[in-house]
């Protein structure tokens, strides 16, 4: 097995693991963090597919901005949860 193939297989395993965990882990905050990790791994995958444009866009938009939107929504969710207790 060449180092390149080993890297590809490792990356794919990490992609599948982070995707599956993001959808099954109990806490939604952890799920979003895993999803951001997934987005960064996708950026790596695009670089491996000789697609630097997509890698840039995926890191900035797919992981960055989507991540920010999701984290903000979680902030909203938690603020809402605390409300009735006050």
């Amino acid at each position, binding site marked *: 097995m060449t180092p*390149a*193939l080993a890297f*590809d*297989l490792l990356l*794919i395993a990490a*992609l*599948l693991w982070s*995707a*599956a965990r*993001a*959808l099954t882990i109990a*806490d*939604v905050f952890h*799920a*979003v963090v895993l*999803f951001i990790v*997934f987005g960064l791994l*996708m950026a790596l*995958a*695009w670089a*491996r*597919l*000789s*697609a630097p*444009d*997509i890698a840039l*866009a*995926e890191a900035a*938009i*797919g992981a960055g*901005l*989507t991540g920010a*939107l*999701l984290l903000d*929504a*979680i902030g*909203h*969710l*938690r603020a*809402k*949860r605390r409300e009735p207790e006050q």
Partner: protein
Amino acid sequence: MSAALLYALAGAALFAIGLAGLLLQPHLLRKILAFNILGSGAFLILVGLGQRDGTADPVPQAMVLTGIVVAIAATALALALARQLLDLTGQMRLPEDRPDAEPVDD
């Protein structure tokens, strides 16, 4: 087998994982994550299969760039709807998916 085809196969698995998540997870945020994973799978298949002969193909790459922008647009709209639903119902799930007595979880 080319590396590109390998990523296309990974894309197939991601599409299936995302599909299962979209259909099975009741929490709206998780459905949104699942939709994004599903989309990433389709994008990997588009570029991976398009480059299965080993040559970089700018056409599917440009399509995926378009697709990523469409995906964030859809995600933002979905999150805005989910928040609005949370404000209106106190829940981040679609009403019929929710047994009435079930306690809130996140």
